[in-house]
């Protein structure tokens, strides 16, 4: 009796200490994770998906058992692995991202996200909590399918590194899709917008399942040893992973900014993400150039791709609201380009674009060259930022230069950006044809962002000279700089007016 009492007395403080430790660990967890996992595990979607997935895996394993019972040396592992993976992929690439999207969309529809923000959690923690909680649920699904995947290894025909490679790449695809889905939930405010985003997301997730399965099939069929020997595969995989990581981060920060209040420094995250994405991509490319100097054409390709990326992200950055909340103004300096306001967004994009062009010029000088076509590549590297600057500034001038606010809303200006670029791309060649000129006439297409860019990159081998020259490039740059200047002045004036009014 006394021994028992002593034992109990000894274990009680230990139990208490363990509970205290668990409690402290629980306190450190993001509250959203605790809540979402509780909610998720009670939901019908979870139990139905979990049950169906297990049932499918069980049936498949029975089929595998029956079909391999007779043959002593079976090599059906690869086929059954893919079968099990299909069951997991349906959940990982569709149900989990879709549930994550619905979860945040409902928070916004029911306005509970406002309550969350008022608690001081902050948009980033809310989004991190959402993503993490659905990844925890994904891990639960994966843990149930894990034994079946291992079972496929014992059926022969697939090796463990291949299984691990497919699972790791699948996990990164799941992570990316979940981030994208959560961010998609922040995109639209109105009912029609939400319905549109919903439909687009459903379609995109359907495609994502297909891509995921095709990649998994390819990898499991080729095997780890085969694909790891191919340099191209490694570079492509690295590029895909980097794109998923950096765009995932950019989208995440954009979503956090959309959930932030106007009184917060909401642009800091997305603008920093965009800057770092470009800087780190530049560093990676520099490494690639130092490792194996690609041809000069790669430099103009990098310039075109970088500027295209900056033009599309830039139109979202540069169409921020005019001015910023009073609380933020005191600490804003002329170089505070990460702070809210359209003018600072526009300037940041211009600075990034100039930096990227400088880097591409560096790449060009490092590339194996010495041929006449190098001049065309130089023109190509320099033409891309000129077109980007012009087509980024033009909608800002059209929308925000007039006193009227009719065209000044961000949505209208984004539509203007795509419409003006599209119209220029389509109408200028038509105009050339109307005046009995070639469809890709250099002068008529001087401001055409597509044909013009192509012309600057073109090299006339019969004449052994570039199709365009520095004079024409200077013209494009002059128009671009003047438009950018007008856009900048318009944004400065609107910010001044906005600040004066509040």
């Amino acid at each position: 009796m006394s021994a028992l009492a002593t034992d109990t007395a000894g274990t009680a403080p230990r139990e208490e200490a363990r509970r205290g430790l668990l409690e402290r660990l629980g306190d450190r967890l993001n509250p959203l994770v605790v809540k979402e996992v509780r909610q998720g595990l009670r939901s019908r979607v979870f139990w139905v998906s979990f049950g169906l997935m297990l049932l499918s895996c069980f049936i498949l394993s029975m089929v595998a058992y029956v079909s391999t019972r007779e043959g002593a040396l079976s090599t059906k592992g690869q086929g059954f692995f893919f079968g099990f993976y299909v069951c997991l992929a349906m959940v990982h690439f569709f149900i989990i991202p879709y549930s994550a999207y619905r979860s945040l969309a409902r928070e916004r529809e029911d306005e509970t996200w406002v309550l969350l923000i008022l608690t001081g959690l902050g948009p980033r923690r809310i989004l991190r909590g959402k993503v993490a909680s659905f990844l925890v649920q994904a891990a639960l699904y994966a843990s149930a399918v894990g034994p079946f995947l291992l079972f496929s290894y014992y059926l022969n025909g697939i090796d463990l590194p291949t299984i691990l490679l497919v699972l790791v790449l699948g996990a990164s695809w799941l992570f990316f899709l979940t981030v994208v889905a959560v961010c998609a939930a922040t995109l639209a405010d109105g009912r029609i917008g939400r319905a549109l985003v919903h439909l687009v997301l459903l379609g995109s997730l359907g495609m994502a399942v297909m891509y995921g399965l095709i990649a998994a099939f390819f990898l499991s069929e080729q095997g780890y040893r085969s694909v790891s020997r191919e340099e191209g595969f490694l570079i492509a995989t690295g590029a895909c992973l980097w794109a998923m990581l950096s765009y995932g981060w950019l989208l995440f920060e954009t979503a956090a900014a959309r959930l932030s209040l106007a009184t917060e420094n909401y642009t800091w995250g997305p603008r920093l993400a965009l800057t770092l994405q470009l800087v780190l991509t530049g560093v990676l490319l520099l490494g690639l150039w130092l490792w194996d100097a690609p041809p000069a054409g790669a430099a103009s390709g990098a310039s075109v791709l970088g500027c295209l990326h900056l033009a599309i992200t830039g139109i979202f950055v540069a169409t921020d609201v005019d001015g910023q909340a009073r609380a933020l103004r005191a600490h804003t300096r002329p170089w505070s380009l990460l702070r809210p306001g359209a003018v600072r967004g526009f300037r940041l994009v211009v600075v990034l674009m100039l930096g990227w062009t400088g880097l591409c010029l560096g790449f060009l000088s490092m590339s194996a060259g010495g041929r006449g076509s190098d001049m065309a590549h130089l023109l190509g590297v320099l033409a891309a930022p000129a077109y980007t600057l012009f087509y980024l500034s033009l909608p800002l001038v059209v929308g925000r230069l007039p006193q009227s606010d009719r065209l000044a809303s961000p949505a209208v200006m984004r539509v203007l950006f795509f419409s003006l670029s599209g119209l220029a791309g389509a109408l200028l060649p038509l105009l050339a044809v109307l005046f009995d000129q070639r469809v890709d006439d250099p002068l008529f297409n001087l401001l055409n962002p597509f044909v013009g860019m192509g012309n600057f990159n073109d090299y006339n081998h019969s004449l052994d000279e570039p199709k365009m020259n520095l004079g024409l490039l200077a013209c494009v740059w002059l128009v671009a700089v003047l438009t950018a200047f007008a856009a900048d002045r318009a944004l400065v004036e609107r910010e001044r007016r906005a600040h004066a009014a509040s």
Partner: protein
Amino acid sequence: MSLLEVKGLRRDYGALRAVDDVSFELEAGTILGFIGPNGAGKSTTMRILATLDTPNAGQVMLDGHSLVDTPDKVRPLIGYMPDRYGTYDDVTVFEFLDFFARAYGLHGRERARRVASVMEFTGLVPLQEKLTSALSKGMKQRVALGRTLLHEPKLLILDEPADGLDPRARIELRELLRALADQGKAVLISSHILTELAEICDTCAIIEQGRLLATGRVADILAQATGTAVAELLVRLFPGEEGEAVWARAERLLLEQPRVKQVAREGDALRVRLEHEGGAAGQWVDESAARVLAALVGAGVPVCAFSHRERNLEDAFMHVTKGRVA
């Protein structure tokens, strides 16, 4: 010093001025009713006060901190309950409150203590294991109120909290709010149900087309609006065998009293309208009522019931507003 000071608040949405030069003060331990027609700017003002929106002009000070310049500092002092309660499906009452307590950064024993105390105050202890989706509207509203109290805010902002509640739930809400005010919290509450507000609120603010038309006690608002304070007495008589003569005598006698402007027969009672020039509300109603009653009894008029009624919030609201929306 007032807990909340709002000065010259203005909010524009493009060409629309939703809130225009709104100023008022709110002291700790008082309940202010925010009244106005739909689209008057109530919710916009409340969202600004809850730091969910930023004004184009004006200043709001809460407990000495600027709500416009340092929203992060004042947020812990505010408990905001929007017109939609904002509860989650598939979580129990306890889990819901526990989640928000975690979100407010409460840890360990402190969190458990706060959740338990809030559940006790709002009467949710017997329902703590129930899913919030299974609760009635009144209970959901209690859960939402409990959520706003978890971090012990000094100012409660409640947007249409009584909307859609049954009479019992309304009475219970009224009692809870009164108890909160007694604890020293300032409560800002908006509602369309004016009789409800009149019973809960110490003061009220009437807003229309984004402009604050009047603030203060209901009687003061009426007095501000008309320049004259008004009250009504209801005198029930038992004429017995004398019949009509008693009514006539009573009417004549009443009209001779100071401040009595009008006497009207209403069933078996007389409705007496009192007016006090100068507009200031005070003890004049009680004083006049005492004098009228003494005169009637002294003259041998058989009074069997006597009551007085001050003009209510509906009167004030109808008098001050003109039914325009911004």
